[in-house]
């Protein structure tokens, strides 16, 4: 409790972190299911939207790892 007695803003911060954390948790629990309307198609890089080769490990456009292609074995 000595932290809370300092009056340096930490006590306010703890309350705020708890409030925001609760909000995030509740938001996560309430996430809705449905079609992924806005997400990039699986043949495009989710980072930069460049077209991905079917066997690409990394995106040629941005260098991020390409998402695993479900059509690829393993």
């Amino acid at each position, binding site marked *: 409790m000595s932290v809370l007695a300092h009056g*340096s803003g930490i006590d306010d911060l703890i309350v705020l972190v708890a409030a925001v954390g609760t909000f*995030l948790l509740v*938001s*996560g629990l309430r996430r809705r299911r449905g079609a992924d309307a806005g997400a990039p198609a699986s043949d495009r890089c*989710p980072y930069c939207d460049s077209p991905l080769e079917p066997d690409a490990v990394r995106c040629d456009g941005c260098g*991020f790892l390409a998402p695993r292609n479900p059509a690829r074995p393993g």
Partner: protein
Amino acid sequence: MTVGLLAHGLGGRVDLPVPRGLFVFGAVTALIVSFVALAVLWPEPRLEKRRPRPIRAAWLRSVMSSAVLGWVVRAAGLVVFGVTTLAAFRPVGPTDTIAPVMVFIWFWVGLAILQAVFGNVWAALSPWDTLGRLLQLDPPAYRPPRAYPKALGRWPAAVLLFGFVWFELASPLPEEPRALGIAIVAYTAITVAGMAAFGRAAWLENGEAFGVYFGLLGRISPLVRDDEGLLAIRPVLSGLPHVEPRPGLLALIVVALGSTTFDGLSRTTWWLDATASLTQGATVAAATAGLLGTILAVAAVYSGAMAVAAGVVEASWHPLAVRFAHSLVPIVLAYVVAHYFSFLLIEGQIGLNRISDPLGLGWNLFGTAGWRVNLTIVSATTTWYVQVAAIVLGHIGGVVLAHDRAIALFDRSRAMRTQYALLAAMVLFTATGLLILSGG
């Protein structure tokens, strides 16, 4: 003058005209009102596809395209760099030469603000860029031994930026004579080696920490050089949606954000009391842990918000976090202004004095060697209001950019739902920033 004069200023304690909580409440309210207003009044992406409009004044065109002027500016940058490096090796006190003021105040703080106002002036001034050009480390004159690995992305810049903020905020080295000089030479050696390995342009774009960092801040500015090198104008912030997603980009932004936050945190009475009785080694360890912890905390809050947003659209959180990373850049600027505004205006005056005697040899080159620091140039109350305004505007800028990106990526209803968690994170950042600033 003592080392304390170069301690990073937060403007000191100020007797607030209303309770601190009310400022936080007002700032958070402004953020939420902005969020709602955007939802109602900003239905289509406006910043994503904006292109700069060239300024067609003939005289400006000839100035901007002047190769001679370009090299004059580069030469000036190189001279300042050379003098600063020489000064940094002088075995005298930190404020007896121009070096610490130049690096930690005029360069790190002043240039950051200049970039946001005038665009990427660092690209024209960078001594490392100039060195690379003088050494002709560009194709076709030079063939780099290897192509820059795309998988590395901006990671070298992120790691080097962390090295700089650790040096400044956690290590005892800035108070050691010559340490700054050694650091400048070491960083220059790394940069030249990087340019030699991958070519000038590739290394400056990915590995030169200050170039990448200042380049991001320059995208806030309404001024930019277009593809033909001419001055062009664009809406404020509209350069940021064009930041290319690259590995390490998010890390670099989080390092910038977390390190400034830690600088503020380390000046609170809570931190000072907790570390007052530690030995120097333990103090460095605590500061290193605090710096890393703050950066990780910022990353965790942002990643958590993005994970919630990703849940809304059933996508992976990491690509989403990268695609929204540019929305944190105005907050980086806000923290720089809020934390260092008074530091720049007050301690920055030491540079006016030292510029006439940059090496501490008793010279008076420009007649300013007798300049006395005016401590009343800005009051604590003014500083506080600037801090509040910077924090609020920076976060509103972040909310605007995130909203614009969300409605560009998703249908409107989903776009709004992805933003709730990010708004919560922005609220947390805003309140934390104000509480830290007012708790010094």
